[in-house]
Structure formats: C-alpha cells, structure tokens
C-alpha cells in the first residue's frame, strides 16, 4: 500500500484544477515531471487501492437542483442492525456511518429535488420507528480544500 514521492505529489497537486483540454493527463504529467502513461497508471492504482475515493468532476448537488442533507438517529445497540438495514434500503441514502455516540447513526441523503429530503425523512421514521434529525447545512466553510499527504 506504500505511496512514493510521486504518488504524494499527484495527490497534493491534483485536488482541483484538472484541465479541460484534449490531452489533460499529458498536461498534468508534464507539470509533475512524469509521462502520461505513468500518471494514468498511478491514478488507476491509487483508485484500486482506495487511496483515492474518486477522480473527476465534483458536482454541487444544490446547484444541480437536488437536495442534500446530513441526518442523524438515536438508535440503541439492540436495534441497530435492523434499523441500519431499513435505512440503507432507501436509494436516497448515499453514505451511512455508525458513530460512538447516543446519536449513533449518521447518513447523507441525496435527492433529485429539495422537497424530497423531508419526505424521505418521514418515510425513514415510519419504517424504523425512530426520529430522524434532519441537519441540512445552513452554511459551508470550505477553505481548507487541499489535504497534504
């Protein structure tokens, strides 16, 4: 799983600003001092090893007209598996994490329309019997985009 200097340079330099042109990987490879096939191979390998979650455009859900929210539930350990299964069955649930807190289940809802968020919350409450705390962001502070490795 080891990453070398070049892998790290790729991650540190490529978290944004990937060019839109005919041969974008060639442009980036040249900036990094490697050739295009090597860059493609390294990106492929880091995706396979899950060192990168993805490579490509990151879309802004709300500006696409969709809904996006973080929701939490207080689910006791004894009921956790059943509720996880019911929540995960909703196609609108993009991610779901167990966390070590009384608010034990945290999931992200992504829907085609903003109105659908509330409806999905109500449906999840009906299916599981637990209250859904819908916590959509009121504001986002996204200055620290880059992550040094």
């Amino acid at each position, binding site marked *: 799983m080891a*990453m070398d200097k070049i892998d790290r340079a*790729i991650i540190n330099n*490529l*978290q*944004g*600003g*990937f060019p*839109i042109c*005919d*041969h974008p990987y*060639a442009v980036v490879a040249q900036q990094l001092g490697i050739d*295009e096939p090597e860059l493609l191979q390294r990106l492929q390998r*880091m*995706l396979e*090893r*899950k*060192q*990168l*979650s*993805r*490579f*490509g*455009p*990151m*879309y*802004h*859900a*709300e*500006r*696409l007209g*969709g809904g996006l929210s*973080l929701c*939490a539930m*207080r689910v006791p350990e004894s009921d956790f598996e059943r509720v996880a299964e019911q929540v995960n069955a909703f196609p609108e649930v*993009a*991610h*779901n*994490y*167990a*966390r070590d*807190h009384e608010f034990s*289940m*945290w999931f*992200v809802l*992504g829907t*085609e329309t903003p109105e659908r968020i509330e409806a999905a919350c109500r449906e999840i409450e009906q299916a599981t019997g637990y209250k859904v*705390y819908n*916590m*959509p*962001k*009121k504001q*986002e*502070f*996204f*200055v*620290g*985009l*880059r*992550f*040094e490795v």
Partner: protein
Amino acid sequence: MSDVVKLDELDRRIVVATQAGLPLVAEPYQQVARALGTTAEEVMQRMQRMLESGIIRRIGAVPNHYTLGFRGNGMTVWDVPDEKVVEYGEKIGALDFVSHAYHRPRFLPEWRYNLFAMVHGTDRDELQHKIDAIAGLLGADNRAHEVLFSTRILKKTGLRLVS
C-alpha cells in the same frame, strides 16, 4: 440558498456520464463525447461552463483519508453563539487539518451543536491536539463540544445526483 443553474438535456447526460469519475484514458473528454454521441469540443465547453457557474466545484482527485493513514478522523461538533458561527466557521474551515466545516441547525434540548468540523490526524493523540487547538481558538465561546468517531461504514454508494 445557492442559485440553481438551468441544465439542458445534454448537460444532464454529461453529469450522469462523469459523476462517478472521469475516464483514465489519454483523451477523457473525447471518450465521454463518443459515449454521448457528441463532440469533445461540446463536452469541454459545457464542462467549462459548469465549472464557471459552480455546478462543478472542481475537477481532480478525492483522497481517502482512512486508507491514506489518517487513523484519527473525527466529526467534531461545537456549540458556539449563533451570531458568531460564521466568523468561527471561516476560521476553523481554513485550518489545514479540517477538511470541511458546516453550520447546521440545533435540535434543543437533545442536540445543542451548531458548528460541525471534520478533523483529520494520523492517530487519536494527534487528533486530540488539533481539537485542543480549535478549542483554544474559540475560547469562552466554546460552550460545549464533542467528538464523534465513526466505528463502521454501514453504506457508501456515493451521491448519484442525476439519474
């Protein structure tokens, strides 16, 4: 609220074709264009426009903190005065160990926290130092805070914004 930009049918098909990732081939836009029955110029022009209007936040690599050796990842939640949440959100969001920070609604009395920050460290000790640094920055305006560690990923299919 953010402005919703009107997309036409071809824009939406470009989003569908690229939301999981850009092809790892020498001419990725050409490959997307071929799959959609259009030209690379058209795809590039439209993606450039989506980038400028903010529909595309950025194009690049998304590092996976867990597999990159950041074992101390915590969702930190803070109760700060509502009138100062923007000021503090901007300061915390600018820290290099915070990947994102959000102002979110409280649910009193069960949930008092209005500022969320994802904090990353190589282990939990380092994470604790970073949390202390945030607490120092907030001073007396830090009325309470907690760290929620993820213990399990229950689902991770990712966002599919347009189908």
